[in-house]
């Protein structure tokens, strides 16, 4: 097992090399460039040339790439070019990463905590009204896009509602139940996180429910379940010890991959609720060609997915001896 882990980790630098070269080249040879975004509509050819020279963008690709790698290996991931001029990229990301991780972690917990039990019930009560209801919820979760959920749920939960009952001279004001983040991030245990986390979780809930339901239906039709029932095992034991355990294997895979996504923020949710995470940062960086922020985010996400994949593969070995890696 140790050898397996080491072998996988040895591939990491190779992967990072390819990811970084491709990202760097896309930035350099793709349309648009940070100097032009910085200058906006006031660009003139001399200013563009002067600033490109000051930033070294007029040097050959390999020189720029090697400079970047050499700085990165020394812990310097460059400075923001456009959105946060001259701020070190490492610090910009480090400041925002914990926020995104907290939000995503809660979203995944909500997704699993709601999705898996729903899927389990739906699978057990297949084709009953309960199953139908759960499937309807899942379809809704997948179908409503975040850009729709954001304003609707905000309107319901984050707004002050005033109801005037003129006959009784009453003005009733309710809410807001869940305040917006609005300039003050209070961490994971604040009411402010619920709406953004729930909206991010809607997709997870749907995926988990579907997977769990399909898994349960499949496992319950297997021969070993019939055997277990035939030998007189109680239904609870058949479901919990046998069928559910096997149905959870793909859930662990999905969950593992989602852990890789912990460090990638959701722009739509973060920007709507004013959550100061990396999603909004990465989005701004992409559209302003803030190269070094993009590079750092891509590398970070690549590393996170490699580690998440590794964790999944190792966990598989524990869950199912048939796919255990030989050392």
């Amino acid at each position: 097992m140790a050898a397996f882990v080491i072998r996988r980790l040895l591939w990491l630098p190779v992967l990072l090399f390819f990811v970084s070269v491709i990202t760097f080249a896309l930035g350099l040879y793709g349309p648009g460039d940070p100097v032009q975004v910085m200058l906006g509509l006031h660009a003139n050819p001399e200013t563009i040339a002067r600033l490109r020279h000051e930033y070294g963008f007029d040097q050959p690709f390999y020189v720029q790439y090697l400079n970047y790698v050499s700085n990165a290996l020394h812990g310097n991931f460059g400075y923001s070019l456009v959105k946060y001029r001259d701020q070190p990229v490492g610090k910009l990301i480090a400041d925002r990463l914990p926020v995104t991780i907290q939000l995503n972690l809660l979203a995944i917990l909500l997704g699993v905590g709601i999705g898996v039990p729903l899927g389990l019930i739906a699978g057990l009560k297949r084709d009953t009204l309960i199953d139908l209801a759960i499937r309807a919820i899942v379809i809704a979760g997948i179908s409503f896009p975040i850009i729709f959920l954001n304003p609707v749920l905000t309107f319901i939960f984050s707004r002050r509602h005033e109801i005037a009952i003129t006959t009784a001279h009453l003005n009733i004001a309710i809410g807001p139940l869940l305040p917006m983040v609005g300039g003050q991030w209070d961490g994971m245990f604040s009411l402010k996180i619920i709406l953004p986390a729930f909206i991010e979780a809607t997709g997870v809930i749907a995926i988990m429910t579907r997977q769990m339901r399909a898994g349960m239906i499949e496992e319950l039709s297997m021969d070993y379940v019939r055997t277990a029932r035939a030998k007189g095992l109680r239904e609870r034991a058949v479901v919990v010890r046998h069928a559910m355990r096997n149905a959870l294997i793909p859930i662990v895979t999905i969950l593992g991959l989602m852990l890789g996504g912990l460090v990638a923020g959701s722009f739509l949710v973060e920007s709507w609720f004013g959550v100061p995470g990396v999603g909004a940062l990465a989005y701004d960086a992409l559209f302003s060609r803030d190269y070094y922020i993009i590079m750092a985010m891509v590398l970070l996400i690549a590393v996170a997915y490699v580690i998440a994949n590794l964790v999944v593969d190792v966990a598989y070995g524990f869950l199912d001896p048939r796919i255990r890696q030989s050392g």
Partner: protein
Amino acid sequence: MANNGGNRWLIGIAVILVIALVGAICVGAGALIVLTQQGPTAQQTSPGVQGTSPTRAPAAPSTSGGNVLRLPGGSGGGGDPPTLDPALAGDAESAVYVAEIFSGLVALDPNLKVVPDIAKSWDVSPDRTVYTFHLREDVKFQDGRPLTAQDFKYSIERAANPATASPTADTYLGDIVGVKDKLNRKAAEVSGVKVIDNYTLQITIDQPKAYFLAKLTFPASYVVDKNNVERGGQTWTDHPNGTGPYMLKEYVRGQRIVLVKNPNYYGDPKPQVPEIDFILGGGSFMTMYENGDLDSTAVSINDIDRVSDPNSPLNKELYIGPELSTQFVVFNVHKPPFDDPKVRQAFALAIDRQKVVDVVFHKMPLVANTILPPGMPGYVDPGTPPAYDPAQAKQLIAQSKYANNMPDITWTTVGAGGAAAQDIQAMTAMIKDNLGINVSIQQTDWATFIGQLNDPTTNPYQIFDIGWIADYADPQNFLDILFRSNSAQNWAGYSNPQVDALLDQAGLEKDTATRFKLYHQAEQMILADYPVVPLTYSRQYWLTKPYVKGMIYPPLIIERLRYVSLSK
């Protein structure tokens, strides 16, 4: 059970699931508690939030009292400013803060007139190239250090230092003798800036320019503290030491910028509101405003009908004002079919601009019929609405050299997603209906778009839409920059020697009335050639709580917050 190890994992996963579920339930219960427990507790946790109250208390006090003004970040959209460094600030989002924290020789007053700031007066040489500024002697940096002319010399040298990589120095300081040489590493010092004594500064420019003082109101020439810059290193603006009416107290990126009164401020009036909080998280400022968590907010097109309704209580808090910007449809005069002026004119006549404004924009902007927007010095009201004449447009197409061989036309616009902006769709539909010409729409992102536009000689776009916002209040800023032959911002690729001659003449003219007359002539001449169709003049829509007094909404970014007071 053959495998006990697996069993342990199963139990582990089950435990995690249970914890997650319990967590979710707790969180859900938390929401319910707030629902039933509103009142004092809810008020303490979030300022300005009111709980359920059977009768609404008159003028319910917000926890912020009269001490804090809460505004949306930047020019209303939230988001972080790209920089707080005056030498680097070239965008409106940065200028909002830079204009409050720093100050310069001259400033624009709320009526957009150039007025003395740190320079109490100035003399101009007879040939109008040497400006001698006499500085106030009572100006201190926010840390208490007295300011001298040396500080201005340092600040301009720094902005012109190529290592500063200022994106604005060419445009705003480039008229000063020696600035371009220093930027291009041909000189070590800016020869055109001389310190005569502690309170006298002399600036020499390359030729007489009526708009030079207007350019000095821009942040590029604002004064910075040498000690602050040199000790602070690359991130010195995290703790800026300026001379403006407000000081930076706190900046949490992505969350808020907090400004506080500068006790050393020299100007009059002094700042009144002790603290101003800018909220940087974006997207939902309207909700925050209605909840009482913000004191002012810009209004988006989604809320415009609701807010414009005279019966809405919000309508009494609404301000509408000019923005000094014009949106254009631009024809690339080098690309067929728009190299034929008849086609350009036909397109202009086939677009019902008033309808676009009324239907698509809900009348938020005003329909445009000139290049200079209303409010801009030199603007002349044409008195007539823009011409819309499909019959004549059809005739023009028939007379054009593309009457029988109209090439494919693609309209390029900034945007993403399944459908292009509605105004573009409306206009291409009008062209289709009125002229029978199919115009396809190509969406692109901003970075790609300006990358192409920034070189007018290779601009591949045939027809596109773009806006221009005034940098300083002078007609030169629109007409010269957008329509002079070979100007980098001449997106249409338009060239008319007569227009160039008029613009030259206007630039040198001393008498303001005559200058504006010359600019008006040039504008008429440009419009007759149809390199662009002026589409709309943008306007600002702001909601502001009635207890906020003295708020001004200048069409240009100027220092303005010291005029504001709160009466709660």
